Structures are given as C-alpha cells and as structure tokens.
C-alpha cells in the first residue's frame, strides 16, 4: 500500500522524502496512459473533483482538468468570475457550499497564501494546492522534479539554478524546498530587491551574480518576471533586467555540457529568456507540460482514498 502522509497536498514543506518519491514513482507509472489510444483509466470513477480557481490560470487548470479526466473523475469547474465570491461571499462560505456537494477532492488556486490551508482545515475533502499567492505551488515542483529525474536519472547531487524574481514566486519556494529535500544543490539568483529575507534558510545558496548561479549547473530554471515589478521599483527596466539576469546562449555556456533549461511558464521571451534558448534542444519546457498531467494524476490518485478519513471540524 502506498499513501501520502496527509489528507491534503498543501505544500512541499509538509511532504517527506518518501512522499515525494511516491508521487514521482506513481507519476512515472502513469505517464504511459497519455500515450494510449484510449487515454483514460477508471481509477477515480464516481469521485468528484472541484476545480476552484480564484485566479485566472489556463495552464495549471487545463493540466489538472486533463489529469482528472484521464482518471475518469467527475469534474466541477468553479472560477472566481463566475462565482459568488464577487458578491462578497467569503472563501469559507464558498468552501462550505461546495463541501455540501460532497466532493472528494478540491483543487484550489488562490491569490492569498494559506487559502488552501483554511480550506483544508474546514473541509472533509482532500485539498490540493494549485498555487497560493507567493507561498507554494507544490504540483509544479513535483512535475519539475519528475522532468529532471527522467532526464538526469537522479536528483541528488545535481546543481539546480533558479533565476529571476524569487520574492514573488511560489514556484521558487516549492522548487527550492523540494530539490533541497531530495539532495540537490539549489542556487537561487536574482536582483537583491527580488530575493526575500532569509531565503537561504529554505535550503538554497543565494547569489545576485547570474554567472555564479549558472556555473556548472545541471538545471537552469528561469522564472517569469511580471511587468509590474518595474512600476513597483524592484528593477529599473526590463531591458536592464535582461542584461543582468536574462538567459542567453552566451550565459548557458557556463552551465554543464548537458544542462537543461526549464521554465514554469508563461515565458516572457526577451525579458528573462532569449528566444533561441527557449527553443533550443536543451530546453525541456514542453516536457514539463507533459509531465504536469502525469504528476497531477499521481497526486489525485494518491489522495483519492483520503477524503473523509479525517472528520471536518465541527461548525461553530
């Protein structure tokens, strides 16, 4: 029997090394389904999954939806624009209303860090964090790890450089925590204005010099730079940012020979990454997308037996 240690998947922080291995092994086994003629298995037949998206997200949401469909779950999509949230209903009200529909799993994306925790505390259903504010994006980190592991055969001992806006990135946090747990050497790099306090305590070496981060790296992970950062005075301009932290072919020479380039998407070509690099054969950005479905299938499969095990807190 295989099982995650908790009812919910809220963060990488809560996962043990065994949990992470289990998800990755399970995802590996599930990859095959996507290459079949009939891309569907009945594992979650009769289970209801609610996709609760308070933030627009085409990629993550499609990936989850495809994973749910391939496992034969019944799906209910609930997005902020269509919901009563705009009418002043609180997250908790929304959650309790949805809970009354007896879903087995709720997948939530929310702009507030900790929103999935609130839901997980109050709901019987298993809650999957599909990205909460600047906190974590655990399934993204798991799919990144799956991608690296399938290409490199291992995680431990690899040098992983994560470059860009570390402060505002939930991917940076989840990836750092995961790769560090699995024994990789994680470097994060960005302008000092975009690296949050005490980030090294999450298990990363911190530098502001891109060359130092890339030197000998096996994996170069680029993060998206939001346009707002310029207005908020974190950086002077996108152009200056590219000269200091953009990934060019030139810079990639510092990495290991067979290094790979990753990006959680959506990319800003010409801002954080040169087009030629994004399209080069060492770029595995599309592998990440494919692995995303298998990873999310694995998470849903592993959690699908969990809901209802822990009684929800009594309403006050």
């Amino acid at each position, binding site marked *: *029997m*295989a*099982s995650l240690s908790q009812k919910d998947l809220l963060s990488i922080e809560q996962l043990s090394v065994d949990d992470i291995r289990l998800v990755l*092994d*399970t995802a*590996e*086994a*599930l*990859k*095959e389904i996507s290459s*079949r*003629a*009939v891309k*569907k*298995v*009945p*594992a979650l037949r*009769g*289970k209801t999954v609610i996709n609760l998206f308070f933030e627009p997200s085409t990629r993550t949401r499609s990936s989850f939806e495809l994973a749910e469909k391939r*496992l034969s779950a019944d799906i209910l999509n609930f997005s902020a624009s269509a919901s009563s949230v705009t009418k002043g209903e609180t997250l908790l009200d929304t959650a309790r209303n949805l809970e009354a529909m007896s879903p087995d799993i709720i997948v939530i994306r929310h702009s507030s860090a900790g929103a999935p925790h609130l839901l997980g505390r109050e709901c019987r259903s298993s809650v999957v964090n599909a990205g909460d504010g600047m906190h974590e994006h655990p399934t993204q980190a798991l799919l990144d790890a799956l991608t690296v592991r399938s290409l490199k055969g291992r995680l431990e001992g690899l040098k992983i450089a994560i470059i860009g806006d570390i402060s505002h990135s939930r991917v940076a946090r989840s990836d750092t925590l995961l790769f560090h747990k699995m024994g990789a050497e994680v470097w994060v790099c960005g302008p000092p204005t975009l690296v949050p306090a005490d980030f090294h305590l999450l298990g990363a070496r911190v530098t502001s010099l891109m060359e130092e981060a890339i030197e000998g790296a096996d994996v170069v992970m680029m993060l998206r730079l939001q346009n707002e950062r310029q207005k908020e005075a974190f950086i002077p301009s996108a152009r200056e940012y590219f000269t200091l932290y953009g990934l060019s072919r030139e810079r990639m020479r510092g990495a290991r020979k067979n290094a790979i380039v990753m990006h959680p998407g959506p990319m800003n070509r010409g801002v954080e990454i040169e087009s030629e690099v994004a399209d080069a054969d060492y770029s595995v950005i599309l592998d990440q997308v494919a692995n995303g479905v298998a990873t999310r299938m*694995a998470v849903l*499969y*592993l959690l*699908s*037996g*969990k809901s209802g*095990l822990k009684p929800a807190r009594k309403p006050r």
Partner: protein
Amino acid sequence: MRKIKGKSLMTAAEIDLALARMAAEIVEKLGPVEEFAVVGIRRRGVPLARRLCRRIEAAVKRPVPLGILDITLYRDDLTAIGNRPMLRETLIDFDIDGRSLVLVDDVLYTGRTVRSALDGLVDLGRPRRVQLAVLIDRGHRELPIQADYVGKTVQTEEGDTVEVRLEEEDGEERVVLLRRGA
C-alpha cells in the same frame, strides 16, 4: 526472507512441470496459426508469463511478445480502501488490436483481478480473443470467469490463503496453502 509455514501444494519441480504442460497446451491451441502474445498480471503473473513465453518461443521458434499489465487503476475496490495501492507501470509495447492474448496470473480466486485486467486490456485496444492461464485455480468465484489453462486445481476454504512463492519475487519456489486461523 519471510518463512511461510503451511500445507505444501506444489514443489519447484511440480511448478516447472505444470508450466511446461500449460505452454504445450497454449502452443497446441494458438501456436501454429495465430499472432499471439503473453501478458502477465502484476506482480506474480509477470514471472510466470515470462517463463511461459520462453517455453512457447522455444516451441514455435519465433519471438512471442510479452506484456506486463498493472491492474491497480481498474480495481473495483479502489473506492472502499483508504490507502492507495502502489501503482506500477503497464508495459505493453506492441499493438494488441486483432491479436490473441494469453493473460497470466498466479492464482484464480474470486475472478475480480481478471475482470480488472480485462477492463485494462480493453482500454489498450481490441484483441481478437483473450485466454486465461493460471498456476492455481482455488475456486470460490464471485464473477463468471474461468481459466483456459490451469496448472493445478485445489480445494480451499473461503478464508484460506494460497501463496505462490517464486524465485524471481520471493527467492524460493513453491506453493503453500495457509488455513484460516492457522
């Protein structure tokens, strides 16, 4: 290695003999005419399928494809159990459309595993026919399923356990019957 005590049903030599006979039967029925393949059900159906496959290939003197089927995602008790069974990969790298398949498992009991396996195969394509080979048929079916090739039929009580121990998985080779409460 876990030591199993109980009534011995088959020795290593008997297992070998049974597999030889089953392979011969399969060859007799399918070998001369048909495109066929052997598919083992994880876990202990896999080494048995591999052994049958080797014997069949030796007899028909041409390669016979071997597949591995993980039926976890098709189990009908998934909703009832809390922890998820460990998932392993299904490895069938040949086209099953129009092919005759011999599904291999160690013990045929309720028939539910075979039912799941049939569902799994249907998702992979449309085989011409599917036959079933098992080392032990212990009775107590809960579904209308029967084997085409049987190594040994044994009488059991419903609570008994039949343990097939194979060199590849368990480091020893024998079949043991554990009585309920023993």
